[in-house]
């Protein structure tokens, strides 16, 4: 064990070191440093390209997802964006019936970091159910319409958050379809009976409703 003099010496050395470090840190010129924080931002980058992929696929366009992933790896090196190794699974399912129907487009990612595995998922989901019939006069012709309740949502899931967005939608054939927003992702739509109508949301994701 140290004696009293030794302890005082040790304390003096500690105080001197702390003072020296403080002076050195204040002399240090400020230089921008890259934050090595991995979290919401990386997940949202992945979720954004997921939405773009779903949008392009629903529109019948081709988006090279593998190319985008390689771009992200390149940006890891050049810009330090800290995206982990990515693998993905895309699934879509639609079941359109006259009385009701639903569909979803889902892209699920596995994001691997050296000591961490994250799951990130984007999902576009809609469903509709029949309400009633009504008739509409279009340029002198009476047309039978089916009224539906339609629900549309985007779900963004990652370890840091779960966000649900109810996007604005519009019909591809605007003059033919009646559409009204009720709230909380629910729309009332009227479409000519025995037709399939296409809708697009504000993020350019296309989906169908069968009347």
């Amino acid at each position, binding site marked *: 064990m140290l004696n009293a003099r030794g302890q005082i010496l040790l304390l003096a050395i500690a105080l001197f070191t702390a003072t020296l470090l403080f002076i050195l840190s204040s002399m240090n010129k*400020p*230089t*921008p*440093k*890259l*934050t090595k*924080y991995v*979290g*919401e*931002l990386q*997940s*949202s*980058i992945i*979720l*954004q*390209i997921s*939405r*773009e992929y779903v949008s392009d696929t629903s529109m019948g366009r081709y*988006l090279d997802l593998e190319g*985008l992933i390689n*771009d*992200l790896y390149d*940006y890891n090196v050049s*810009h*330090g*964006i800290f995206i982990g190794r990515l693998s993905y699974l895309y699934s879509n399912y639609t079941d359109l019936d006259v009385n009701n129907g639903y569909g979803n487009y889902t892209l699920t990612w596995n994001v691997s970091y050296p000591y961490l595995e994250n799951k990130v998922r984007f999902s576009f989901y809609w469903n509709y159910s029949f309400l009633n019939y009504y008739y509409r006069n279009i340029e002198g012709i009476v047309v039978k319409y089916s009224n539906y309740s339609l629900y549309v949502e985007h779900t*963004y899931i990652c370890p*840091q*958050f779960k*966000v649900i*967005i109810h996007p604005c939608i519009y019909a591809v054939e605007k003059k033919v379809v009646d559409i009204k927003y009720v709230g909380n992702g629910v729309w009332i739509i009227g479409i000519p009976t025995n037709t399939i109508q296409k809708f697009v949301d*504000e*993020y*350019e994701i296309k989906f169908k409703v069968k009347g």
Partner: protein
Amino acid sequence: MYCGDEEMRHIEGILITIIYLLFLAYAYSSVRYSFPNHIVEVNRALAYYIIIHKHLVVEDFLRYLKNNPSIVFVKINNRVVYSTINPESYTTINFVFLNNSRWIEVIIGVKC
């Protein structure tokens, strides 16, 4: 008796070393893996912006960022689009935004 004292001192030394190492590990990990609240807040704000928006419009994006006083610097595609008059020491948060199938490179400077 003497041997017992010697043994006790050894154990004491080992215990002090273990506590010292634990403290060092704690201090290192808290410095290495913890981030100031404002850095985390900016990250969350950027994540929210990316999720909500399909397109990155520079003016709109800057208006959004200027709400946060800790942001001192914004560079988009290698062009400085916003900087406070005298930026202090800052750390950068880098990300990319897919805009009409083209990447936009964004660097945000946040006060340290």
